[in-house]
């Protein structure tokens, strides 16, 4: 057998054996990847369905129409029906509910007679964003109520045209992007660990005096971590898709994107490991950079909506291109102004750059 191929396969074999002994490491990396799915879920929960007490003191038909408009108002409220205003007010006071809406007695009758009825809205104005949401959502529901009840004097309404046939859930949108981030966490961390350990345990010095180039067995090790990363990411993707009930529209495209991401992030991880040369900071560093890379990649909405400066900066992150392709693969959404072909080319470009980085820093580490 060719000595170079033998050295490469030796590296693969050695790394697979090491990873077999380091199941806790793989489990922790998986845990970290799943943590990010939890993170986006928690963040996504803050955007909609404010838990709101509804105290209805009127049994008339217009009160029911008003309630149904509150329920259907742009994912604004998670209505909790209560009979006792004092108890509801206490729950808002304790922070268990965000707001309370009270429909007074005689609501339907008074409106039918053309009188104006005050609806009490008691808000936990814990921050202005939350308060603004409620302040906009209630008039929005009132407008729909006016339209539906065909009240006299209502002169304007809105005719909406959407770019897509249906809205994608905020959490699902973020989960699809988070899978790209998980590829970074899993493959980046594992390969960074592998390379850093070579330097930390001084094996690198032994490799440097071997008859073949030291990068060849190292490449074998990184290849092994890439394969293991693919398996670990498959578990995370399954959890993400099954857990959130997401069916990718283009599953093969999704698999291809994630495979490319694993290769790219493995190379970036290898470069990171060669630069740091210590395993201890690798975990903290990966977790630290993962969040900004994720948030500046169009992960929660098309990045350009945040302004040209942030959008321009996002182009320096490989996640931007991967997320653009991923949202298309999973939901058939276009979230970047660039066409898909450009995103795919850019991703391939990033893979070449990351290979070059891994090569350069590893080589420098050995010298």
């Amino acid at each position, binding site marked *: 057998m060719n000595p170079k191929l033998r050295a490469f396969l030796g590296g693969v074999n050695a790394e697979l054996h090491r990873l077999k002994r380091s199941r806790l*490491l793989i489990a922790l990396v998986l845990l*970290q990847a799943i943590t990010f799915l939890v993170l986006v879920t928690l*963040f996504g*929960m*803050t955007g*909609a*369905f404010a838990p709101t007490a509804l105290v209805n003191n009127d049994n008339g038909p217009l009160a029911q129409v008003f309630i149904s408009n509150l329920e259907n*108002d*742009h*994912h604004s409220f998670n209505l909790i029906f209560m009979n006792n205003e004092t108890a509801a007010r206490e729950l808002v006071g304790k*922070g268990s509910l965000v707001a309370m809406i009270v429909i007074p007695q005689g609501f339907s009758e008074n*409106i039918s007679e053309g009188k*104006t009825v005050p*609806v*009490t*809205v008691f*808000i*936990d*104005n*814990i*921050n*202005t*964003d939350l*308060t*603004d949401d409620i302040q*906009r959502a209630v*008039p929005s529901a*009132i*407008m*729909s*109520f*006016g339209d539906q009840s065909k009240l006299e*004097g*209502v*002169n*304007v*309404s*809105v005719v*909406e045209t*959407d770019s897509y046939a249906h*809205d*994608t859930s905020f959490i699902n*949108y973020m989960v699809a992007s988070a899978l790209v981030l998980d590829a970074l966490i899993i493959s980046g961390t594992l390969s960074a660990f592998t390379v850093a350990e070579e330097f930390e345990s001084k094996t690198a010095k032994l490799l440097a005096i071997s008859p073949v180039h030291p990068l060849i067995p190292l490449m074998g090790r990184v290849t092994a971590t890439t394969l293991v990363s693919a398996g670990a990411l498959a578990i995370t993707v399954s959890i993400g898709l099954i857990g959130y009930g997401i069916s990718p529209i283009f599953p093969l495209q999704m698999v291809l994107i994630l495979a490319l991401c694993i290769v790219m992030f493995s190379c970036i991880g290898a470069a990171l490991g060669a630069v*740091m040369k*210590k395993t*201890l*900071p*690798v975990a*903290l*560093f990966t977790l*630290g950079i993962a969040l900004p890379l994720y*948030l*500046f990649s169009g992960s*929660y909405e*098309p990045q*350009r*909506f*945040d302004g040209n400066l942030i959008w321009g900066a996002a182009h320096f992150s490989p996640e931007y291109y991967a997320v653009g392709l991923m*949202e298309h693969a999973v939901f058939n959404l276009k979230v*970047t102004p660039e066409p898909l072909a450009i995103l795919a080319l850019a991703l391939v470009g990033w893979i070449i750059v990351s290979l070059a980085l891994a090569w350069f820093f590893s080589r420098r580490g050995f010298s």
Partner: protein
Amino acid sequence: MKTKSILVIALHDLRRWRKMPLTAACALIPPIVLTLVLVTLSLAVTQQPVALVVQGNGPASMHMAQIISSDTEAYDLTMTNATIANKMLNDEQVAAIITIPSTFDHDVANGTGKILLTVNNVDFDFSDDIRRAVDRSLVEFDAPSLVSDESVNSSLPNVYHVALDEQYIRETNVDWVHYQFVPTFVLLILDVGLVGTALLCALDGESKTARMLVLSPQRSWMLVSGRILGGVFACFAIVLPAVLLSVLFGFFSLPINQLPALFGIFLGTAFCASGIGTIIGTLVKGSRYVAFLSSVISMYLFLLGGGFTTIELAPRWLQDLSAFIPTRYSIDALRQALFYPNPTGLPFSLLVLALFAIAFVGVGSFLMRRSWTA
């Protein structure tokens, strides 16, 4: 003498931290990055980029346009024509187009006025924000007394016959970025105190120093106290400059009367972090595993405590779970002390935090001492 010994041990641990600059720097990355992210996100969660196309030129069209353009809290508005607006929507320069059609004045006079809204609805978070804002603008057109603060008490007719009696629970007006920024201090304490103490414990185990400690002439409780106090000192060494810098840069103002409460919150959180770090560092073998696990746990403690999220908006089960997370009380107490004029829940939060700190330090100390002889 005993105090001096404990302090010497604590300061020794601080010096060990200084000898790991790369690890220490990496532990600081998450809170620093989170601050930058929050500042950036504040641009995204408040205003939405929207194009306004005014094709009508009558008084009703002008009035409608004026209502929309005056809502600067909701829209980052670009006034343009239909062609450019469509190009901007395709290029994602705007998330939606609001069009006031040329027939608007005529239609309003007939009671059939329509505003055209085209939304890039890739997800419902920002598209719902736009829909609510547009609805509110329309309500303001037909029933100004319903939404406009200046018109609340006016005698203008309300065509919806529904008036709003808005009542607020607090006398405060904290914006999103400041509200979310405050928990960053808790993350800072977790990353320094929890991760740092956990790593030092793990390194003691790896380097077999732990076994030497058993032979030390000092009492074991002093050694344990020194380790935990070292973690607390490290937290304060980082948090105090961070707080001062935040005040200097105007992120928030420091209420003098709440300084003792703030000190108590930081102290309680630092002891909790150090105690949890001791538990992880003692139970898990191998510094790299400890680094991983402690960073993941600190992230969970931060998120479930209400950092980066509004726990009140989370499902009931998550709110219940959050009640058993010490950082929930740290974050609650910090927000109350800094933002609310009447922080009635502060003593309770401080008490629970203190109980958590005692429990974690107690369990951590016991496990650490036991690990030395194991």
